């Protein structure tokens, strides 16, 4: 079955701004604008960039004890997530693999969940089937944009003073340009910034208010990928999937202490065992020494020629000024400083295991 590509409420704006449109997970999305990926990347690290992330799934969960019930599907402490707070999480399967990652916000009278574009068709039925007594409603009439970068607070705060009061991983309803928006201080670039859910009818107008600021320019999927890679953030389908456990993916930080101890989520047996005993492989940062980028699928070998694993995400890091990558390697070769070889087009290229992220995260805690 092939569905016609879908367009977000911002599609006409992307075209107007000269965005180069590509198919992404069934959506017609801008991969870059005339500024180019490098320029957009730099814009986000130095000033502010506006991204359309409306293709992601926005879901409202209503009912009693939503947080407790979500804990039966995810290893996160969502029951104790305070009102106005957001938390990164993931659905696990019975084998302890990651089904998708998501951001969950406690919005007071409901929970607000954002899931990946390609997996909304899996995640919505999964929640509907397993969250007993919870009304699971996917929202189709709102856009989602991200304003990211050190100037994001100025760009958004000028229009919405309440945005300045939010700290990292906090969420609130606020007025922007006369429109009621959900504004959350979080994002996927390693920079300070916001994700803002806007009613569809006002999405272009509000986005243009952000873009009217001298320090804000549009950025596409290309920059989004290079930014998140430098920030050491996993991309579902590349770095994490149904077969990888969160412990292998070095996402231990995203499983709170109580949940580690109590278990009670799908795959808890494997995850608790791996927390106690470690894993055979581990997701790490990998810095090629030369200039050649190591792309997804490139084999990682020990200096002695043994296969250690493979690159899961690899590109050129514009801020780093050279190639950057993430991938899985055998745990006994996962320490920062370990020298490895990357087999790029048949030739061994020297590289080093490094601590993630490649660039310092700039969140306003």
């Amino acid at each position: 079955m092939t569905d016609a590509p879908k367009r977000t409420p911002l599609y006409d704006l992307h075209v107007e701004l000269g965005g180069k449109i590509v198919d992404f997970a069934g959506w017609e999305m801008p991969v870059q604008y005339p500024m180019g990926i490098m320029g957009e990347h730099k814009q986000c690290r130095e000033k502010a960039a506006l991204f359309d992330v409306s293709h992601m799934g926005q879901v409202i969960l209503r009912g009693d004890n939503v947080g407790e019930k979500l804990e039966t599907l995810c290893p996160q402490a969502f029951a104790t997530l305070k009102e106005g707070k957001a938390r990164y999480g993931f659905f696990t399967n019975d084998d302890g693999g990651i089904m998708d990652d998501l951001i969950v916000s406690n919005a007071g009278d409901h929970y607000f969940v954002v899931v990946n574009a390609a997996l909304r068709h899996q995640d919505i039925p999964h929640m509907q089937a397993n969250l007993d007594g919870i009304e699971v409603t996917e929202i189709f009439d709102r856009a989602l944009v991200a304003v990211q970068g050190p100037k994001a607070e100025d760009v958004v705060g000028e229009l919405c003073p309440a945005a300045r009061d939010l700290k990292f991983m906090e969420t609130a309803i606020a007025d922007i340009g006369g429109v009621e928006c959900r504004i959350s201080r979080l994002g996927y670039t390693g920079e300070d910034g916001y994700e803002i859910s806007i009613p569809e009818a006002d999405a272009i107008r509000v986005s243009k208010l952000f873009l009217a600021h001298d320090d804000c320019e549009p950025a596409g999927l290309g920059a989004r990928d290079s930014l998140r890679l430098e920030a050491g953030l996993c991309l579902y389908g590349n770095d994490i999937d149904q077969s990888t456990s969160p412990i292998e993916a070095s996402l231990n930080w995203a499983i709170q202490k109580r949940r580690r101890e109590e278990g009670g989520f799908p795959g808890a047996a494997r995850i608790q065992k791996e927390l106690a005993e470690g894993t055979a492989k581990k997701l790490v940062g990998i810095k090629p020494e030369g200039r050649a980028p190591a792309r997804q699928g490139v084999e990682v070998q020990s200096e002695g020629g043994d296969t250690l694993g493979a690159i899961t995400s690899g590109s050129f890091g514009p801020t780093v000024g050279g190639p950057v990558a993430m991938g899985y390697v055998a745990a006994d070769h996962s320490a920062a400083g370990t020298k490895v070889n990357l087999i790029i087009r048949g030739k061994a290229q020297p590289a080093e295991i490094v601590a993630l992220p490649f660039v310092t995260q700039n969140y306003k805690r």
Partner: protein
Amino acid sequence: MATYYSEDHEWITVEGDVATLGITQHAADQLGEVVFVEQRETGDEFEKGGEIGVIESVKAASEIYAPLDGEVVEVNETLADNPGALNESPEGDAWIYKIKLSDASQLDDLMDLDGYKALIG
């Protein structure tokens, strides 16, 4: 000095039996920002249609294919330190190889500028 174009978006200029080879402005625009060029070495021999290098942009890797048989007599080594030159001056300073042609009649299979313009529309 005649300039020829290949369907793989390369340009070739010929002086005597030495051809200079690069990628077209159209190819450079399609690739996006170039961050790395993998080149062969002087003395390497090319066969028409064979892979003779790789251009990596921020987005992806793209192979360069030989438009002619020949032997590399010079490599533009400035591209190693400044791969971005391929975006700025693909049909000028950022040539990739000079090749000694082994069969000049292969030039007849390539396009002239009008033919290439028709190809890229």
